[in-house]
């Protein structure tokens, strides 16, 4: 139905895609996997002919025998949305914020002149209902900002499939969503593919997702498809060394000994954290939202505890309180024998450091790495051997001491995360809070960072509080798991026990929703 032959793209002299070929039949899903920069999205944009300016495209894309490369831009506009449709990664920004969802879905029909305004709106209502947005709860007059991420992605799907296209390209459609939302969106896409007899090119970096929903998997590396296989053959059927290493990295478990629980280090008792909401009446009391509702937890010295939950579960709010950034409305937090609060002493703060998801955002781009890593010293005054300490932690995280003189933009994403870990280590803390610290990394980089974290823990006797939504990571590194939902901890226990025999219904739901790779 769709065939791609010898697709190559260059931007300037830089090759982006090299000789990409595949064919796809109606009702089938081809999963295109690879790490960032491997050319997955460029493949999709080449088919759509929506490449960035200055990109040079060669090769042949044919839709039911019709060469798309030979079409004029005007004819191509006719193909987009009608025969080939696409959904994207960021549902939060993929919709026009100042237009109603009804208008945006109806526009697909209007642009292609297949219906008048009234009929287009009627069909938009119908399509929105099909993707699970019932008209009584989600009337056409809703604006995107009134919907959640998952609901917005449903709107994007409705507008993509409004004209029953032959090919649906889904570019990381669930990457920004929670696991349970992801599971629902994935089953919606699978249903629509079967119902409409569409072909689907499904792009993702998540090997678990393709293993679950694709009929065939293509692995991309540096602009080339290096391996094609059926999911049933995973992981043993892989021949290409890169594809094998990719799948190995995805389910990588760092070598580490289970911690022998030391003395309790961090103790949270009945923590309550309220947010004030905007007032409904000008002089009325401001309503409160309870983000953390009576949470108690303990992290022992040298232990790795994972805090799992979906967005809005209160885990980041709890993390801010634990770091002493926000005051609690009830309960208490203690680190060792000292109370944690926004007013705590810098000496206490030194004992607790944090690493975030996007280290680049927390680096001043005009400072050299040495200065960035030395930043926490302002808490306790700069020691005499500050430079030696910076060099030591840089080598600790697998960088070299001379990297202190370079700027953060000179490093890759994984190296930047190492710099952030070095910065957390420099004050020799007892506890490091890792807030989605490996979530944005490619699987192979993530595997190496997990190894590094395990190694640092063994050498320095660190305790980790690992906040994440990624259950694969939890299984790989955590001694104990806390599952958080609606501001409360609903389940707690040793990692193996929680994964094998979840006690709470929500934990079971999370585990069912998580796409897991077939075990090696």
């Amino acid at each position, binding site marked *: 139905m769709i065939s791609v032959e010898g697709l190559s793209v260059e931007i300037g002299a830089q090759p982006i895609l090299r000789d990409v070929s595949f064919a796809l039949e109606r009702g089938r899903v081809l999963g295109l996997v690879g790490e960032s920069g491997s050319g997955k999205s460029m493949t999709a944009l080449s088919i*759509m002919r*929506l490449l960035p*300016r200055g990109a040079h495209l060669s090769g042949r894309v044919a839709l039911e025998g019709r060469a798309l490369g030979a079409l004029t*831009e*005007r004819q191509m*506009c*006719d*193909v*987009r*949305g*009608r025969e080939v*449709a*696409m959904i*994207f990664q*960021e549902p939060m*920004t*993929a*919709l*026009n*914020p*100042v*237009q109603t969802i009804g208008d945006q879905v109806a*526009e*697909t029909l209007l*642009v*292609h002149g297949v219906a008048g305004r009234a009929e287009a709106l009627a069909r938009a209502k119908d399509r929105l*209902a099909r993707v699970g947005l*019932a*008209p*009584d*709860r989600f*009337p056409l007059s809703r*604006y995107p*900002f*009134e919907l959640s991420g998952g609901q917005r992605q449903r709107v*994007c799907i409705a*507008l*993509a499939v409004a004209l029953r296209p032959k090919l649906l390209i889904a570019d990381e459609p669930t990457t920004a969503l929670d696991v349970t939302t992801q599971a629902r969106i994935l089953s919606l896409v699978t249903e629509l593919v079967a119902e409409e007899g569409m072909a689907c090119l499904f792009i993702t970096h998540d090997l678990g997702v393709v293993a679950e929903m694709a009929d065939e998997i293509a692995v991309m590396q540096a602009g080339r498809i290096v391996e094609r296989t059926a999911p049933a053959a995973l992981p043993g059927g892989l021949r290409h060394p890169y594809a094998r290493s990719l799948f190995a990295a995805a389910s990588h478990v760092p070598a580490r000994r289970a911690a022998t629980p030391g003395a309790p280090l961090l103790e949270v008792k009945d923590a309550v954290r309220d947010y004030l909401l*905007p007032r409904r009446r000008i002089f009325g009391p401001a309503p409160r939202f309870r983000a953390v509702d009576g949470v108690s937890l303990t992290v022992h010295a040298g232990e790795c505890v994972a805090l799992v939950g979906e967005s809005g579960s209160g885990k980041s709010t709890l993390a801010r309180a634990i770091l002493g950034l926000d005051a609690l409305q009830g309960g208490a937090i203690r680190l060792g024998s000292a109370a944690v609060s926004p007013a705590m002493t810098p000496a206490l703060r030194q004992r607790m450091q944090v690493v975030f998801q996007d280290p680049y955002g927390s680096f001043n781009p005009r400072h050299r790495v040495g200065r960035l890593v030395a930043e926490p010293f302002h808490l306790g005054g700069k020691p005499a051997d500050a430079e030696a300490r910076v060099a030591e932690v840089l080598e600790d995280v697998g960088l070299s001491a001379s990297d202190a003189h370079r700027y953060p933009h000179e490093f890759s994403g994984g190296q930047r995360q190492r710099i952030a870990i070095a910065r957390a280590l420099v004050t020799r803390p007892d506890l490091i809070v890792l807030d989605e610290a490996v979530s944005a990394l490619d699987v192979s980089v993530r595997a190496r960072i997990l190894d590094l974290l395990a190694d640092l823990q063994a050498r320095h006797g660190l305790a980790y509080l690992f906040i994440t939504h990624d259950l694969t990571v939890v299984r790989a590194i955590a001694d104990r798991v806390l599952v958080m939902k609606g501001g409360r901890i609903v389940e707690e226990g040793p990692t193996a026990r929680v994964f094998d025999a979840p006690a709470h219904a929500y934990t079971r739901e999370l585990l069912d929703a998580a796409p897991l790779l077939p075990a090696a």
Partner: protein
Amino acid sequence: MHDGSPDAKGLARAAAFARLAAMARYLALRFLSLALSLAVASVVIFAVIQGVPGDPAAFMLGLNAAPDTVAALRSELGLEGGLAQRYIAWVGGMATGDFGISYTYRVPVADLVADRLAVSLPLAAYALLLSTALALPAGMLAAARRGGPVDWGIIAATQLGIAVPNFWFAMLLVVLFAITWPVFSAGGFPGWEAGLFAGLKALTLPAVALALPQAAILARVMRSALIETLHADYIRTARAKGLSEAAAIRRHAFRNALIPVLTILGLQFSFLLAGAIIIENVFFLPGLGRLIFQGITARDLIVVQSVTMLLVFAVILVTFLVDLAYAAVDPRLRKRG
């Protein structure tokens, strides 16, 4: 799935009501801030002109005035009595349309201002219309052809428009269109009694001179706001739907780019109303800018005080209207209030 159950209808009605309530709240808050700004501004203007040490009457009459002339003027100006009392009398007078009597012109200030507004307001509106009509298409064209020769041409033209002072444009226009090709007159205003066409004709050259630099700024704002929105994800979605780039700009990027453009438009209108003084001088137009300038040179404090207050009112009113326009453009503002 539940379709159209009475419960669902009730929900929809409640949602519609909540929407209206949020809109009303937004309006009420904006209106409150308008009233507050006006009150604060009136106090400041009054304090600066009347509350400062020294006798306004003596100041108006100059150094060599006889004491009894000063005393006469004091009573004429209503300067007897406490500050608070005078302030209330002034504000109360303005509320009923009584702005006092001009000392130099010997006519009610309200009449003076009305005459001048009849020139300044149409001139400002005319110039704003011209500048918008010129700037928005130019900005959109430049954004659509970004990086190309058309874009470069428009950028160069706007650079020139910003750099060259408007009175120089004015003189150039006079030389070209009043002397070389005498299509328009070089200055003066026949009054609206001479007919709409004659009035507009007299205002055309000044409006063009005023509009060009404003259009240059506006076009740049339009261009950069559009280019920013063109990188947005929803433009990519629109393209994937099958919209051409031009249609994506028209239907999706334009409205999202309007907020910064509206901000600049609001500022420009206020400026055009009072700041046209140089252009009014070049074209001998009896406008508001000249009135306040003459008021200051003649030390006619009553005129200065009233016209300043009027201009403040105009600026605040325009800001209010711009706030309303924001809400019309962006549904998120309507909701948050």
